[in-house]
Protein backbone atom coordinates (compact mmCIF):
# COMPACT_ATOMS: atom_id res chain seq x y z
CA UNK A 1 0.00 0.00 0.00
CA UNK A 2 1.38 3.41 -0.92
CA UNK A 3 1.91 6.12 1.61
CA UNK A 4 -0.66 8.37 -0.08
CA UNK A 5 -3.31 5.73 0.08
CA UNK A 6 -2.70 4.88 3.68
CA UNK A 7 -2.72 8.56 4.45
CA UNK A 8 -6.01 9.04 2.71
CA UNK A 9 -7.54 6.08 4.44
CA UNK A 10 -6.31 7.47 7.72
CA UNK A 11 -7.61 10.95 7.15
CA UNK A 12 -11.01 9.60 6.29
CA UNK A 13 -11.20 8.22 9.76
CA UNK A 14 -9.88 11.24 11.59
CA UNK A 15 -12.07 14.03 12.79
CA UNK A 16 -10.29 16.56 10.62
CA UNK A 17 -11.91 14.84 7.67
CA UNK A 18 -15.25 16.28 8.70
CA UNK A 19 -13.89 19.78 8.23
CA UNK A 20 -12.23 18.96 4.91
CA UNK A 21 -15.34 17.27 3.64
CA UNK A 22 -17.59 20.11 4.71
CA UNK A 23 -15.69 22.45 2.40
CA UNK A 24 -15.99 20.29 -0.69
CA UNK A 25 -19.21 18.34 -0.40
CA UNK A 26 -22.86 19.27 -0.05
CA UNK A 27 -23.71 19.76 3.58
CA UNK A 28 -25.93 16.69 3.93
CA UNK A 29 -23.25 14.41 2.60
CA UNK A 30 -20.64 15.93 4.86
CA UNK A 31 -22.86 15.50 7.89
CA UNK A 32 -23.43 11.90 6.90
CA UNK A 33 -19.68 11.35 6.56
CA UNK A 34 -19.01 12.98 9.90
CA UNK A 35 -21.64 10.83 11.60
CA UNK A 36 -20.13 7.70 10.09
CA UNK A 37 -16.64 8.79 11.11
CA UNK A 38 -17.76 9.49 14.62
CA UNK A 39 -18.88 5.93 15.19
CA UNK A 40 -16.08 4.15 13.39
CA UNK A 41 -12.93 3.74 15.46
CA UNK A 42 -9.44 3.96 14.03
CA UNK A 43 -7.55 0.71 13.67
CA UNK A 44 -3.85 0.15 13.04
CA UNK A 45 -2.72 -2.76 10.93
CA UNK A 46 0.82 -3.89 11.75
CA UNK A 47 2.43 -6.07 9.09
CA UNK A 48 5.29 -7.71 10.93
CA UNK A 49 6.69 -9.26 7.76
CA UNK A 50 7.79 -5.75 6.78
CA UNK A 51 9.39 -4.74 10.10
CA UNK A 52 13.21 -4.68 10.09
CA UNK A 53 13.58 -3.95 13.79
CA UNK A 54 15.33 -0.61 13.32
CA UNK A 55 13.56 0.92 16.36
CA UNK A 56 12.91 4.21 14.57
CA UNK A 57 9.34 3.96 15.87
CA UNK A 58 10.52 3.40 19.44
CA UNK A 59 12.59 6.60 19.43
CA UNK A 60 9.90 8.56 17.61
CA UNK A 61 7.43 7.53 20.32
CA UNK A 62 9.77 8.75 23.05
CA UNK A 63 10.40 12.02 21.37
CA UNK A 64 6.78 12.69 20.59
CA UNK A 65 5.59 11.87 24.09
CA UNK A 66 8.56 13.12 26.14
CA UNK A 67 6.46 15.83 27.74
CA UNK A 68 4.10 13.25 29.21
CA UNK A 69 6.82 11.23 30.91
CA UNK A 70 6.94 11.22 34.72
CA UNK A 71 9.34 13.42 36.67
CA UNK A 72 9.10 11.81 40.10
CA UNK A 73 9.98 13.55 43.33
CA UNK A 74 12.57 11.79 45.45
CA UNK A 75 12.85 10.50 48.07
CA UNK A 76 9.57 8.64 47.64
CA UNK A 77 7.19 8.71 50.59
CA UNK A 78 7.40 5.54 52.63
CA UNK A 79 4.48 3.26 51.78
CA UNK A 80 2.56 0.95 54.10
CA UNK A 81 2.40 -1.96 54.34
CA UNK A 82 5.96 -2.80 53.37
CA UNK A 83 4.93 -5.18 50.63
CA UNK A 84 3.85 -2.28 48.42
CA UNK A 85 6.50 -2.24 45.73
CA UNK A 86 8.33 0.93 44.73
CA UNK A 87 8.54 0.99 40.96
CA UNK A 88 11.11 3.44 39.78
CA UNK A 89 12.14 3.70 36.14
CA UNK A 90 13.34 7.28 36.29
CA UNK A 91 17.00 6.22 36.39
CA UNK A 92 16.51 3.64 33.67
CA UNK A 93 14.82 5.74 31.05
CA UNK A 94 17.05 4.37 28.31
CA UNK A 95 15.62 0.82 28.54
CA UNK A 96 14.06 -0.08 25.17
CA UNK A 97 13.68 -3.86 25.35
CA UNK A 98 10.37 -3.86 27.22
CA UNK A 99 7.44 -1.61 28.14
CA UNK A 100 8.22 0.91 30.88
CA UNK A 101 6.68 4.25 31.92
CA UNK A 102 9.29 5.82 29.60
CA UNK A 103 9.03 3.27 26.81
CA UNK A 104 5.51 2.78 25.50
CA UNK A 105 6.55 0.80 22.46
CA UNK A 106 9.25 -1.82 22.10
CA UNK A 107 10.43 -4.27 19.47
CA UNK A 108 9.93 -7.90 20.36
CA UNK A 109 12.40 -10.27 18.71
CA UNK A 110 10.72 -13.50 17.70
CA UNK A 111 11.84 -16.57 15.88
CA UNK A 112 9.95 -19.33 14.15
CA UNK A 113 10.77 -22.39 12.17
CA UNK A 114 9.39 -22.31 8.67
CA UNK A 115 9.97 -25.30 6.40
CA UNK A 116 12.89 -26.40 8.51
CA UNK A 117 14.49 -22.97 8.38
CA UNK A 118 14.85 -20.53 11.23
CA UNK A 119 13.09 -17.23 10.59
CA UNK A 120 13.59 -14.04 12.59
CA UNK A 121 10.75 -11.56 13.00
CA UNK A 122 10.55 -8.26 14.83
CA UNK A 123 7.23 -7.15 16.28
CA UNK A 124 6.39 -3.63 17.46
CA UNK A 125 4.48 -4.05 20.74
CA UNK A 126 2.39 -1.55 22.66
CA UNK A 127 -1.17 -1.17 23.95
CA UNK A 128 -3.66 -2.96 21.66
CA UNK A 129 -6.41 -0.35 22.18
CA UNK A 130 -9.11 -2.93 22.88
CA UNK A 131 -12.62 -2.35 21.54
CA UNK A 132 -13.99 -2.62 25.07
CA UNK A 133 -10.89 -1.84 27.14
CA UNK A 134 -10.92 -3.39 30.62
CA UNK A 135 -8.26 -0.91 31.74
CA UNK A 136 -10.68 1.95 31.06
CA UNK A 137 -13.95 0.34 32.08
CA UNK A 138 -12.71 -1.19 35.32
CA UNK A 139 -10.61 1.69 36.64
CA UNK A 140 -12.21 2.45 40.03
CA UNK A 141 -11.23 6.15 39.93
CA UNK A 142 -12.29 6.93 36.42
CA UNK A 143 -8.70 7.84 35.56
CA UNK A 144 -8.82 6.17 32.18
CA UNK A 145 -11.02 6.86 29.22
CA UNK A 146 -11.71 5.67 25.74
CA UNK A 147 -12.34 8.13 22.96
CA UNK A 148 -14.81 7.66 20.14
CA UNK A 149 -11.90 7.08 17.75
CA UNK A 150 -11.08 3.94 19.72
CA UNK A 151 -7.98 5.06 21.60
CA UNK A 152 -7.73 4.48 25.30
CA UNK A 153 -5.62 6.55 27.62
CA UNK A 154 -4.88 7.06 31.27
CA UNK A 155 -5.09 10.57 32.68
CA UNK A 156 -1.86 11.08 34.62
CA UNK A 157 -3.50 13.85 36.69
CA UNK A 158 -6.13 11.50 38.12
CA UNK A 159 -4.41 8.09 38.16
CA UNK A 160 -3.40 6.91 41.65
CA UNK A 161 -1.17 4.11 40.41
CA UNK A 162 -3.09 1.24 42.01
CA UNK A 163 -2.20 -0.83 38.94
CA UNK A 164 -5.62 -2.40 38.55
CA UNK A 165 -5.55 -1.51 34.86
CA UNK A 166 -2.45 -3.65 34.48
CA UNK A 167 -4.03 -6.51 36.44
CA UNK A 168 -7.12 -6.56 34.23
CA UNK A 169 -5.28 -5.94 30.95
CA UNK A 170 -4.89 -9.28 29.12
CA UNK A 171 -1.39 -8.17 28.09
CA UNK A 172 -0.32 -6.40 31.31
CA UNK A 173 0.42 -3.28 29.29
CA UNK A 174 0.27 -0.25 31.65
CA UNK A 175 3.49 0.37 33.58
CA UNK A 176 3.85 2.14 36.90
CA UNK A 177 6.14 4.91 38.06
CA UNK A 178 6.16 5.60 41.79
CA UNK A 179 6.57 9.11 43.20
CA UNK A 180 4.37 11.08 40.80
CA UNK A 181 0.74 12.08 40.61
CA UNK A 182 -2.29 12.73 42.72
CA UNK A 183 -1.62 10.14 45.44
CA UNK A 184 1.18 12.36 46.77
CA UNK A 185 -1.47 14.95 47.71
CA UNK A 186 -3.89 12.49 49.37
CA UNK A 187 -2.55 9.69 51.55
CA UNK A 188 0.85 8.89 50.03
CA UNK A 189 1.73 6.21 52.57
CA UNK A 190 -1.64 4.46 52.63
CA UNK A 191 -3.20 4.63 49.19
CA UNK A 192 -1.92 4.80 45.64
CA UNK A 193 1.57 4.33 44.33
CA UNK A 194 2.25 6.68 41.43
CA UNK A 195 0.86 6.80 37.93
CA UNK A 196 0.36 4.19 35.20
CA UNK A 197 1.71 4.88 31.71
CA UNK A 198 1.07 3.36 28.31
CA UNK A 199 0.65 4.20 24.64
CA UNK A 200 -2.13 6.76 24.20
CA UNK A 201 -1.95 6.56 20.44
CA UNK A 202 -0.45 10.03 20.29
CA UNK A 203 -3.88 11.58 20.89
CA UNK A 204 -2.33 15.04 20.69
CA UNK A 205 -1.27 14.34 17.11
CA UNK A 206 -4.53 12.65 16.13
CA UNK A 207 -6.40 15.72 17.34
CA UNK A 208 -4.46 17.75 14.78
CA UNK A 209 -5.20 15.24 12.05
CA UNK A 210 -1.63 13.92 12.12
CA UNK A 211 -0.55 10.31 12.28
CA UNK A 212 0.88 8.78 15.47
CA UNK A 213 4.64 9.27 15.71
CA UNK A 214 5.55 5.59 15.39
CA UNK A 215 3.60 5.24 12.16
CA UNK A 216 5.04 8.41 10.67
CA UNK A 217 8.63 7.49 11.52
CA UNK A 218 8.69 3.94 10.20
CA UNK A 219 10.84 3.70 7.04
CA UNK A 220 9.22 0.40 6.06
CA UNK A 221 5.60 1.49 6.38
CA UNK A 222 4.90 -1.40 8.71
CA UNK A 223 1.78 0.23 10.17
CA UNK A 224 -1.32 1.57 8.47
CA UNK A 225 -4.05 3.45 10.31
CA UNK A 226 -7.62 4.02 9.18
CA UNK A 227 -11.32 3.43 9.87
CA UNK A 228 -12.09 0.01 11.26
CA UNK A 229 -14.02 -1.49 8.35
CA UNK A 230 -11.34 -0.51 5.84
CA UNK A 231 -8.49 -1.74 8.00
CA UNK A 232 -10.15 -5.08 8.71
CA UNK A 233 -10.61 -5.54 5.00
CA UNK A 234 -7.02 -4.54 4.34
CA UNK A 235 -5.66 -6.88 6.99
CA UNK A 236 -7.65 -9.80 5.64
CA UNK A 237 -6.59 -9.07 2.08
CA UNK A 238 -2.91 -8.84 2.99
CA UNK A 239 -3.09 -11.98 5.08
CA UNK A 240 -4.63 -13.81 2.15
CA UNK A 241 -1.93 -12.58 -0.22
CA UNK A 242 0.88 -13.89 1.97
CA UNK A 243 -1.00 -16.90 3.37
CA UNK A 244 -0.59 -15.14 6.66
CA UNK A 245 -2.29 -14.95 10.04
CA UNK A 246 -4.05 -12.25 12.03
CA UNK A 247 -3.89 -11.33 15.69
CA UNK A 248 -6.10 -8.76 17.38
CA UNK A 249 -9.23 -9.15 15.31
CA UNK A 250 -10.96 -11.33 17.90
CA UNK A 251 -8.64 -11.10 20.90
CA UNK A 252 -10.35 -9.76 24.00
CA UNK A 253 -13.50 -9.26 21.96
CA UNK A 254 -11.54 -7.43 19.25
CA UNK A 255 -8.89 -4.74 19.44
CA UNK A 256 -8.10 -1.68 17.39
CA UNK A 257 -4.72 -3.20 16.52
CA UNK A 258 -4.39 -6.02 14.01
CA UNK A 259 -1.08 -7.81 13.48
CA UNK A 260 -0.37 -9.70 10.27
CA UNK A 261 2.25 -12.42 10.39
CA UNK A 262 3.52 -14.83 7.73
CA UNK A 263 3.73 -17.55 10.40
CA UNK A 264 1.05 -18.68 12.85
CA UNK A 265 1.30 -16.69 16.06
CA UNK A 266 1.48 -19.80 18.21
CA UNK A 267 4.63 -20.82 16.37
CA UNK A 268 6.47 -17.60 17.13
CA UNK A 269 8.79 -17.94 20.08
CA UNK A 270 9.89 -14.89 21.98
CA UNK A 271 10.60 -13.80 25.50
CA UNK A 272 7.52 -12.87 27.48
CA UNK A 273 7.15 -11.70 31.07
CA UNK A 274 7.33 -8.35 32.82
CA UNK A 275 6.72 -5.59 30.29
CA UNK A 276 6.91 -8.13 27.45
CA UNK A 277 3.39 -9.11 26.38
CA UNK A 278 2.45 -12.52 24.95
CA UNK A 279 0.57 -13.20 21.72
CA UNK A 280 -1.73 -15.96 22.89
CA UNK A 281 -5.44 -16.13 22.11
CA UNK A 282 -7.43 -14.00 24.57
CA UNK A 283 -11.11 -14.47 25.40
CA UNK A 284 -13.36 -11.44 25.73
CA UNK A 285 -12.68 -10.42 29.33
CA UNK A 286 -15.67 -8.09 29.56
CA UNK A 287 -18.19 -10.53 28.04
CA UNK A 288 -19.38 -11.99 31.33
CA UNK A 289 -20.14 -8.54 32.72
CA UNK A 290 -22.06 -7.64 29.57
CA UNK A 291 -24.15 -10.81 29.86
CA UNK A 292 -24.88 -10.20 33.53
CA UNK A 293 -25.89 -6.65 32.67
CA UNK A 294 -28.76 -8.09 30.65
CA UNK A 295 -29.91 -10.15 33.63
CA UNK A 296 -29.89 -6.96 35.67
CA UNK A 297 -32.63 -5.46 33.54
CA UNK A 298 -34.94 -8.38 34.32
CA UNK A 299 -34.22 -8.46 38.07
CA UNK A 300 -36.45 -5.58 39.27
CA UNK A 301 -39.27 -6.77 37.02
CA UNK A 302 -39.01 -10.25 38.54
CA UNK A 303 -39.07 -8.73 42.04
CA UNK A 304 -42.11 -6.62 41.17
CA UNK A 305 -43.87 -9.62 39.65
CA UNK A 306 -43.26 -11.64 42.81
CA UNK A 307 -44.76 -8.91 44.99
CA UNK A 308 -47.70 -8.51 42.68
CA UNK A 309 -48.27 -12.26 42.63
CA UNK A 310 -48.36 -12.33 46.39
CA UNK A 311 -50.80 -9.43 46.51
CA UNK A 312 -53.05 -11.02 43.93
CA UNK A 313 -53.07 -14.31 45.82
CA UNK A 314 -54.01 -12.56 49.04
CA UNK A 315 -56.89 -10.71 47.40
CA UNK A 316 -58.15 -13.95 45.93
CA UNK A 317 -57.93 -15.62 49.31
CA UNK A 318 -59.73 -12.70 50.96
CA UNK A 319 -62.55 -12.98 48.46
CA UNK A 320 -63.03 -16.70 48.82
Amino acid at each position, binding site marked *: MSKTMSRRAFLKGSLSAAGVAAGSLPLAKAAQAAAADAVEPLVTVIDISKCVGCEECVYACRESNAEKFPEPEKPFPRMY*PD*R*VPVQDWSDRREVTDRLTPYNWLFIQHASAEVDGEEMELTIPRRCMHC*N*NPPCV*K*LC*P*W*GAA*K*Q*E*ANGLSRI*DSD*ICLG*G*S*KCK*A*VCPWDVPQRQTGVGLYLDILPSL*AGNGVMYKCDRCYQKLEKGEQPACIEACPEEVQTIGPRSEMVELAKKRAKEMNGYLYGLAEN*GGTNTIYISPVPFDRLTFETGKGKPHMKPVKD*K*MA*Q*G*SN*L*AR*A*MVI*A*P*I*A*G*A*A*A*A*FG*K*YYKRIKEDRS
Partner: protein
Amino acid sequence: MIYGLTLLFITLSGFAQMPIFKRYYIADIPGLGWLAKFYITHSLHYIMASVLLALGGYAVTRLAVSGKGLSSLTFWGRAKGAIILGLVISGAIMVVRNLPGIHFSHMAIYVMNLTHLGLCMALLAVSAFTLVARKPWMH
Protein backbone atom coordinates in the same frame (compact mmCIF):
# COMPACT_ATOMS: atom_id res chain seq x y z
CA MET B 1 -31.90 -11.27 56.17
CA ILE B 2 -31.54 -11.57 52.38
CA TYR B 3 -31.23 -7.79 52.27
CA GLY B 4 -28.49 -7.83 54.92
CA LEU B 5 -26.48 -10.53 53.15
CA THR B 6 -26.89 -8.82 49.80
CA LEU B 7 -25.72 -5.57 51.31
CA LEU B 8 -22.69 -7.30 52.81
CA PHE B 9 -21.60 -8.94 49.56
CA ILE B 10 -22.41 -6.01 47.33
CA THR B 11 -20.32 -3.76 49.57
CA LEU B 12 -17.45 -6.23 49.78
CA SER B 13 -17.39 -6.81 46.03
CA GLY B 14 -17.82 -3.09 45.49
CA PHE B 15 -14.85 -2.20 47.64
CA ALA B 16 -12.95 -4.97 45.90
CA GLN B 17 -13.16 -2.88 42.74
CA MET B 18 -10.43 -0.80 44.33
CA PRO B 19 -7.02 -2.43 44.52
CA ILE B 20 -6.94 -2.47 48.32
CA PHE B 21 -7.62 -6.01 49.50
CA LYS B 22 -4.30 -7.30 48.26
CA ARG B 23 -2.32 -4.35 49.52
CA TYR B 24 -3.74 -4.75 53.01
CA TYR B 25 -3.31 -8.54 53.24
CA ILE B 26 -7.07 -9.14 53.44
CA ALA B 27 -6.95 -11.31 50.33
CA ASP B 28 -4.28 -13.41 52.09
CA ILE B 29 -6.78 -14.56 54.71
CA PRO B 30 -7.77 -18.12 53.74
CA GLY B 31 -11.11 -18.06 51.96
CA LEU B 32 -10.86 -14.40 50.98
CA GLY B 33 -8.44 -14.69 48.07
CA TRP B 34 -11.29 -14.07 45.62
CA LEU B 35 -11.51 -10.49 46.87
CA ALA B 36 -8.36 -9.65 44.91
CA LYS B 37 -9.60 -11.24 41.67
CA PHE B 38 -11.06 -8.31 39.79
CA TYR B 39 -13.10 -10.20 37.21
CA ILE B 40 -14.68 -12.39 39.90
CA THR B 41 -15.60 -9.48 42.15
CA HIS B 42 -16.86 -7.54 39.13
CA SER B 43 -19.27 -10.37 38.21
CA LEU B 44 -20.26 -10.85 41.84
CA HIS B 45 -21.01 -7.14 42.17
CA TYR B 46 -23.31 -7.40 39.13
CA ILE B 47 -25.03 -10.51 40.51
CA MET B 48 -25.56 -8.89 43.92
CA ALA B 49 -26.85 -5.77 42.18
CA SER B 50 -29.41 -7.96 40.39
CA VAL B 51 -30.52 -9.43 43.72
CA LEU B 52 -30.79 -5.95 45.21
CA LEU B 53 -32.76 -4.74 42.20
CA ALA B 54 -35.14 -7.71 42.55
CA LEU B 55 -35.61 -6.90 46.25
CA GLY B 56 -36.12 -3.27 45.32
CA GLY B 57 -38.69 -4.16 42.69
CA TYR B 58 -40.45 -6.34 45.23
CA ALA B 59 -40.45 -3.68 47.95
CA VAL B 60 -41.59 -0.85 45.70
CA THR B 61 -44.42 -2.93 44.24
CA ARG B 62 -45.58 -3.93 47.70
CA LEU B 63 -45.62 -0.30 48.76
CA ALA B 64 -47.55 0.60 45.64
CA VAL B 65 -50.22 -2.09 45.91
CA SER B 66 -50.67 -1.55 49.64
CA GLY B 67 -52.19 1.79 48.74
CA LYS B 68 -50.18 3.61 51.39
CA GLY B 69 -47.12 4.31 49.25
CA LEU B 70 -44.33 6.33 50.75
CA SER B 71 -46.37 7.36 53.80
CA SER B 72 -45.76 3.96 55.40
CA LEU B 73 -42.00 4.59 55.39
CA THR B 74 -40.26 6.24 58.33
CA PHE B 75 -37.89 9.16 57.83
CA TRP B 76 -34.90 6.82 57.95
CA GLY B 77 -36.63 4.38 55.64
CA ARG B 78 -37.07 7.13 53.10
CA ALA B 79 -33.49 8.29 53.56
CA LYS B 80 -32.14 4.80 52.92
CA GLY B 81 -34.49 4.35 49.98
CA ALA B 82 -33.28 7.60 48.43
CA ILE B 83 -29.64 6.62 48.83
CA ILE B 84 -30.29 3.19 47.32
CA LEU B 85 -32.09 4.85 44.42
CA GLY B 86 -29.01 7.04 43.87
CA LEU B 87 -26.77 3.98 43.98
CA VAL B 88 -28.98 2.19 41.48
CA ILE B 89 -28.97 5.14 39.09
CA SER B 90 -25.22 5.80 39.26
CA GLY B 91 -24.55 2.06 39.14
CA ALA B 92 -26.79 1.60 36.13
CA ILE B 93 -24.98 4.37 34.29
CA MET B 94 -21.67 2.61 34.96
CA VAL B 95 -23.04 -0.74 33.81
CA VAL B 96 -24.06 0.90 30.55
CA ARG B 97 -20.63 2.52 30.26
CA ASN B 98 -19.03 -0.92 30.59
CA LEU B 99 -20.83 -2.28 27.55
CA PRO B 100 -18.79 -2.38 24.36
CA GLY B 101 -18.93 0.66 22.12
CA ILE B 102 -20.02 3.12 24.82
CA HIS B 103 -17.85 6.17 25.39
CA PHE B 104 -18.62 8.60 28.17
CA SER B 105 -16.87 11.89 28.72
CA HIS B 106 -14.08 11.73 31.20
CA MET B 107 -15.88 14.06 33.58
CA ALA B 108 -19.01 11.89 33.53
CA ILE B 109 -17.02 8.75 34.36
CA TYR B 110 -15.17 10.49 37.15
CA VAL B 111 -18.29 12.03 38.70
CA MET B 112 -20.22 8.73 38.50
CA ASN B 113 -17.41 6.81 40.23
CA LEU B 114 -17.20 9.32 43.05
CA THR B 115 -20.98 9.58 43.41
CA HIS B 116 -21.34 5.82 43.63
CA LEU B 117 -18.59 5.57 46.21
CA GLY B 118 -19.93 8.53 48.22
CA LEU B 119 -23.49 7.16 48.27
CA CYS B 120 -22.17 3.77 49.33
CA MET B 121 -20.41 5.36 52.28
CA ALA B 122 -23.58 7.27 53.14
CA LEU B 123 -25.66 4.09 53.02
CA LEU B 124 -23.19 2.27 55.25
CA ALA B 125 -23.24 5.11 57.77
CA VAL B 126 -27.03 5.44 57.81
CA SER B 127 -27.54 1.66 57.94
CA ALA B 128 -25.12 1.35 60.85
CA PHE B 129 -26.97 4.12 62.65
CA THR B 130 -30.45 2.68 62.07
CA LEU B 131 -29.25 -0.74 63.17
CA VAL B 132 -27.77 0.54 66.42
CA ALA B 133 -30.51 3.09 67.16
CA ARG B 134 -33.20 0.55 66.12
CA LYS B 135 -34.88 2.79 63.62
CA PRO B 136 -37.17 0.66 61.44
CA TRP B 137 -37.91 1.11 57.72
CA MET B 138 -41.69 1.25 58.22
CA HIS B 139 -44.07 2.76 60.70
